[in-house]
């Protein structure tokens, strides 16, 4: 007894604020302040109330979309093209990812880090360019071949999939792998039988997530002429036929919804496997269905591997390569690239801040409540989720023009256009995070008499802040790549330079701008990754 008393009490863990988080938090606020200062929001009028009539036309058309039989037939055919591109693009990306994961994983290289670093650096190039930019480049080499759409999705997606697959392989428990190695198995066999089985669930889950994303990307590719729904949307958008635009948006939203629901069902099942049965019929069925769909798509798009290695393709690659190298380095261009990059960062920060604020504000409505609720609350939840679906089904360039009707030209319309679109994506993700969060702390506070707001602030927010900010940081990198789209219309950003260079066929300048875009995404990616580690 005395011995116990005499021993010094163990030091209680001191509750102190993590200094790193403070630095990142203040840095983030400073960045936001700088972006706001540059947006013109604080320095003068930004609204153009006279344009409400034009926005009214856009919104009014939403309730009377074009439903003529002829147009619906066009839309139905285009939907099939979009599905075919999405399935083949995502499928090829998973294949590339599986092969690329080998040189991208730490397991392969062991202690020799140089090869690993080199591969990771190499992956930044395909990953840093938007699918639409890949599409633009591929059109110049492959012309109207359907490979343009497939590869434009498969190349950037393949690179990111390789990275994620490698991380998944590196992170699974390695007991089986080590045991196999110790028993004398070769490294290949040990990987196949010791590493792959425990990682299989994660790999499958991520593959289906990619497929969901590919549907939205396939639409974006249509905007550059690869066909499908996005293509019909772009045509009708050029003449501002809003009724037709809305019809394609609804078709697109439906497609996204199907992909979301199916993908989520598969991912949920992977996360919580049914006990007992040997092979889950739902998962087997999903994989077989996607394979069948891919087989159909190859036939539907008339995809021929011969086109990739034809003499004409080689000739065009040579033409573009010789025209585009070396990159332009004149001072005027470099100065323009620099100021456009700064504007791009501004735009992306504003967009992500807007989307995050909106997503947090709507999270309570989006998340399906845990307990029993009234029909009013349920209807409100469904409506909010549908609204978010539409926000992400309308492509950013359309939002940019619509917002430009009521805002004066500048960084703001572009930033808000990206923000609105990102809100559609982030709103859903944050809602899911809320659904999956631990409800017990909040419930305990409420049971002990805390007000609902107090219970939410002290019970739910602390646990959610980390995941929500991490999601926002992930989207930041995506938004930087998306700014390429909304640069026109005097909104600024690096998209203006890219579009000026491509439309005047100034290939050396195109190379310079593309290098700048890749560097920009790498920097944002690194900063985001650092900030996320501070949040953990």
């Amino acid at each position, binding site marked *: 007894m005395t011995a116990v008393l005499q021993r010094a009490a163990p030091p209680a863990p001191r509750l102190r604020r993590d200094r790193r988080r403070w630095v990142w938090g203040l840095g983030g606020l400073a960045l936001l302040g700088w972006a706001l200062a540059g947006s013109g929001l604080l320095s003068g009028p930004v609204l153009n109330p006279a344009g409400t009539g034009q926005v009214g036309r856009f919104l009014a058309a939403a309730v009377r979309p074009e439903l003529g039989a002829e147009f619906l037939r066009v839309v139905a055919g285009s939907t099939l093209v979009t599905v075919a591109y999405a399935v083949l693009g995502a499928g090829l990306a998973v294949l590339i990812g599986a092969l690329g994961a080998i040189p991208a994983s730490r397991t392969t290289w062991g202690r020799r880090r140089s090869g690993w670093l080199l591969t990771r650096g190499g992956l930044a190039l395909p990953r840093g360019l938007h699918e639409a930019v890949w599409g633009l480049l591929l*059109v110049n080499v492959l012309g*109207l071949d359907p490979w343009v759409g497939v590869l434009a999705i498969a190349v950037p997606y393949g690179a990111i999939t390789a990275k994620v697959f490698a991380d998944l392989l590196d992170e699974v428990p390695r007991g089986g792998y080590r045991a196999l190695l110790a028993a004398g198995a070769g490294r290949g066999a040990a990987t196949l039988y010791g590493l792959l089985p425990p990682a299989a669930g994660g790999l499958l889950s991520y593959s289906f997530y990619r497929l969901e994303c590919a549907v939205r990307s396939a639409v974006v590719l249509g905007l550059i002429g690869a066909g499908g729904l996005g*293509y019909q949307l772009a045509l009708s958008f050029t003449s501002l036929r809003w009724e037709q635009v809305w019809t394609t948006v609804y078709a697109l939203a439906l497609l996204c919804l199907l992909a979301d629901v199916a993908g989520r069902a598969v991912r949920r099942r992977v996360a919580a496997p049914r006990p007992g049965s040997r092979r889950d019929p739902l998962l087997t069925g999903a994989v077989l269905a996607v394979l069948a769909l891919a087989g159909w798509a190859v036939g539907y798009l*008339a995809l021929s591997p011969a086109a990739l290695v034809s003499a004409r393709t080689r000739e065009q690659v040579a033409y573009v390569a010789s025209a585009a190298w070396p990159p332009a380095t004149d001072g005027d261009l470099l100065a323009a690239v620099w100021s456009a990059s700064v504007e791009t960062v501004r735009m992306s920060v504003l967009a992500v801040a807007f989307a995050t604020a909106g997503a947090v504000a709507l999270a309570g409505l989006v998340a399906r409540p845990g307990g029993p609720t009234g029909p009013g609350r349920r209807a409100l939840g469904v409506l909010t989720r549908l609204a978010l679906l539409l926000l992400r089904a309308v492509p950013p360039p359309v939002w940019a023009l619509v917002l*430009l009707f009521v805002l004066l*030209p500048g960084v703001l319309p572009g930033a808000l256009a990206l923000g609105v679109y990102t809100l559609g994506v982030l709103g859903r993700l944050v809602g899911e995070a809320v659904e999956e969060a631990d409800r017990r702390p909040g419930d305990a506070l409420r049971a002990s008499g805390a007000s609902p707001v107090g219970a939410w602030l002290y019970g739910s927010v602390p646990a959610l802040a980390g995941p929500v900010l991490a999601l926002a940081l992930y989207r930041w990198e995506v938004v930087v790549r998306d700014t390429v789209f909304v640069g026109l219309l*005097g909104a600024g950003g690096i998209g203006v330079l890219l579009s000026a260079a491509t*439309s005047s066929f100034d290939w050396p300048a195109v190379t310079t701008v593309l290098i700048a875009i890749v560097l920009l995404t790498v920097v944002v990616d690194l900063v985001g990754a650092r900030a996320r580690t501070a949040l953990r």
Partner: protein
Amino acid sequence: MRPARAARSGGFVPGSDPLPTFSRRTLLTGTGALLAATLAGCGTGSAAAPGDPGPLRIGAIPDQDPEVLQRLFGTVAGSLSADLDLDVEYRPVTDYAAAVSLFRTGDLDLVWFGGLTGVQARLQARGAVPIAQRDIDEEFHSVFVVNTATGLAPADDLASLADLRFTYGSETSTSGRLMPAYYLREAGVDPEGFPGGPGFSGSHDATIALVASGTYQAGVLNEQVWRSRTESGEVDPAVVAYARTPAYHDYHWLLGPGAVARFGGGLGGRLTGWFTGLSAGDPDDAAVLELFGAGSFLPTEAANYRQIEEIGRDLGLVS
């Protein structure tokens, strides 16, 4: 051993699996064989027989009503195909630069280009020949429009536009960018110097809508589009015409060198003959002419676009 344990350790459990139990190896081999078969099948299917020139692929820059053009282009393709005994195929494009690239790669044989895109295409595909233009293209004009809130009355003096928020159409549009920028500079206005920089609305219709909303106080567009929209009463009364540019050559059909090699040297002449022979009296021909908003088609030649090329070089749009 209980069934669940047996299953986990890989043993055979009768009736535990609702799907046919085939081994992983069978599944993989089967899928692989299926994919290989599909790929091989379409590889042989799409190869053209030697000596067959294939279809004549026509396209158009997405300028005025591209959705109408795309959805009605069957008219042109059908009419052309019947009269010249050619297999004609329409391949739609959504982007000015993509149309030029596709002409270079030979994916498009005959394209309806604007003045500037036609020059860009001829510079990239040596040996391309202009085939025909519309009657209105010989003397084409652009219209500067202003929002009524500016209080500007129609005039010839472009200098008063210099201090307004101003938008062009598409970046490489001849009537929505190139020629207006040239005439602005002639009038002493820096074509890139508008407050906040000029905007690029992306299309003639978007220019009208953005000037109507007042986001941009002034803009410029193709006179043909302006006329057709004013006549149909679609234009918001807040937009009025301010000035009209002098005349210049614009749109034309351009035939690629690849098509001449495939179909023979006489193709250019036959096409010019077909276009110029279209008459408003014939109902089929009239449909084609109406689609292009033309009274008739006329022959044209590369020399007509020399001024456009020079201006394009000056403005850094032709390299």
